[in-house]
């Protein structure tokens, strides 16, 4: 932590091409990029958004899901987040509560409305598909820096945009579906433009495209459209975000597990 702060301070003071000048090894360069990208995507406090998920099979048939999410940043730990399912009907009212952690497994609970039961679920392995989509749980949660090894692979122009190419290797290889992730980040804003996921056998599994960025709070860039393409099964999933709201005043009490039964899918903040 201290080290990265120092690094940031130095980065801010350096006039040109700070990365090459400062960090010698590709690992240090990669880590510095990841730290900066993380810094730029945090500091929003809390956030709510509406999400439409479109699942598309090989034949082009579509399935839609509607979700709402709430996120609260924590001082010294991963985010707390809530996902409320509005559709399809049979999962309506289901709520997923996640406390992500910088170290160790996340805590996760599922609220099942039919039984009014809050069920603890194991969150160690996050390689499973989220609601039958091409997004795995590990693609959607907050990606904690501490859980990946980083390496800077160079810079590359993507659709006329200069990008850092960053390799990320999950440190908990047993519980990840990936052997490595290659990310393309815009060099000026550190926005994620594209990401490639390689399976445990080192074959290309999926590609993520992040589109329709908008800026909030004067510093925060949020993609309003994520497109995940699975190269191995030919299926695709789009995530469309709308009604992003920040600093709406969420507190820890909004993420208490015994409040889940009183959160409604329709109402709430």
């Amino acid at each position: 932590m201290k080290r990265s702060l120092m690094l940031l301070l130095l980065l801010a003071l350096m006039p040109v091409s700070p990365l090459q000048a400062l960090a010698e090894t590709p690992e240090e360069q990669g880590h510095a990029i990841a730290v900066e990208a993380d810094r730029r995507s945090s500091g929003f406090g809390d956030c709510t958004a509406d999400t439409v998920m479109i699942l598309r099979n090989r034949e082009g048939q579509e399935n839609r899901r509607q979700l709402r999410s709430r996120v609260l940043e924590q001082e010294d730990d991963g985010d707390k987040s809530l996902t409320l399912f509005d559709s399809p009907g049979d999962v309506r009212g289901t709520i997923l509560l996640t406390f992500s952690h910088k170290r160790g497994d996340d805590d996760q609970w599922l609220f099942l409305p039919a039984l009014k039961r809050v069920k603890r679920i194991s969150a160690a392995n996050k390689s499973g598909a989220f609601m039958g989509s091409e997004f795995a749980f590990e693609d959607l949660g907050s990606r904690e820096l501490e859980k990946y090894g980083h390496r800077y692979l160079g810079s590359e122009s993507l659709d006329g945009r200069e990008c850092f190419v960053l390799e990320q290797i999950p440190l908990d290889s047993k519980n990840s579906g990936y052997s490595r992730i290659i990310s393309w980040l815009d060099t000026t804003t550190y926005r994620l433009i594209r990401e490639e996921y390689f399976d445990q056998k080192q074959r290309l599994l999926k590609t993520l495209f992040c589109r329709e960025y908008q800026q909030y709070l004067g510093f925060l860039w949020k993609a309003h459209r994520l497109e995940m393409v699975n190269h191995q099964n030919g299926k695709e999933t789009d995530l469309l975000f709308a009604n992003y709201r920040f600093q709406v005043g969420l507190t820890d009490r909004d993420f208490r597990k015994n409040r889940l039964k009183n959160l409604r899918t329709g109402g709430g903040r």
Partner: protein
Amino acid sequence: MAVRTPTGSPSGRALGLGAAAALLLLVGCCTVGLSMELQGTVSLEGRLFPQASAYQGQEDYDASLVLEPELYWEGEGGLSCSLKPFLRLDTSDPERSHSDLREANLLYGADSWQLLFGLDKVFWGVTEFVHLVDIVNQTDLVESPDQEEKLGQPMLALSLEQEWGTLEAYLLPLFRERTFPGSRGRLRGPLVIDSGAAEYESGAGRTHPDLALRYSHTLGNLDLGLYQFFGTSREPLFLPSAGQEEELIPFYSQISQTGLDLQLVEGQWLWKLEALQRSGQGPGRGAVACGFEYTWVRPWQLDLDLGFIAEYVRDQRRLADDSPYDNDLMLGMRLGLNDAQGSELLLGMVQDLAQPSCFMVLEAGQRLGESLHLSLSGYLFVRTAEQDPLRFYQQDSYLLFKGSYYF
């Protein structure tokens, strides 16, 4: 013959009053400009019992229409109202045709406390096959033998949330009687239970005020709950009926019960324990259930999840002919295909370790489009021992087809 209309019984009238009060409340909320929302489920069900019935008058199949609308209002300042009526119309058993208010309540949520008034459902527990410590709501047994369907419970509930945990206090002013299949229904014993003729240990009968206090907390990877309950047992004993030889009368004792539930998560393992100590209902008073659930995510890199459940239950309570779980081992397997249709399959087996009784459960479900869900479930009573309460169900293995539309 125990045929009554659900609203004819005294508790039905009290419920009717409660419903009227809740409706007034909700209309009141509506007029002061709270946002309202209506959703719900309508289901068609068919049950098929392939074996000949054990007792005269029982039907071999039934069909049901189930309606569960849900109205919800939410206002500014932490106030909300919820109304969730329930209606089942069944072709064969008049006792199974019944209505209920699953929820009709007003909730106020402040920063560190919440107050709820009205009918609601509260679930306590961690295990999958049996729900030993769950006590607030009465079981709506005509719905399903798995005892997971519950009647709405009138309550005043206060919950305090602190750094050191959550403290909940429940005042339960009106008791709900367990529902039982009628003479034409399956999944019953040779004697029909006349649920409306229930007797009580307490002179106050169903208006005895029951109390419950619960403490719960999460400590890292451990969830724990501890409660004390004073009041009317949700599980009745059975007395012979004075007037009718073919009938039994439920008798509800006054009990005090301490309950504990623990759950520990470690990697892909969930370790579970439920235990209770009861006094006031005859000798033999402890019960414990423990077990684990292991989830295997993407076995052999396949896009599916496999869950394995093993549980053991030991129940010393002697509830006349009610709980079949005295010394039982349960094994289950859950398969989630993780596809767009949300296809799921659950298989379970319950083996009595003291006597040769065994039954199996099956649940399979799949979504169709965005508003339809189809499922097939069933019970198979493989063999039932002489002394086992399950012996009455030996002929009652069944398959249930269900189609639900969500609006």
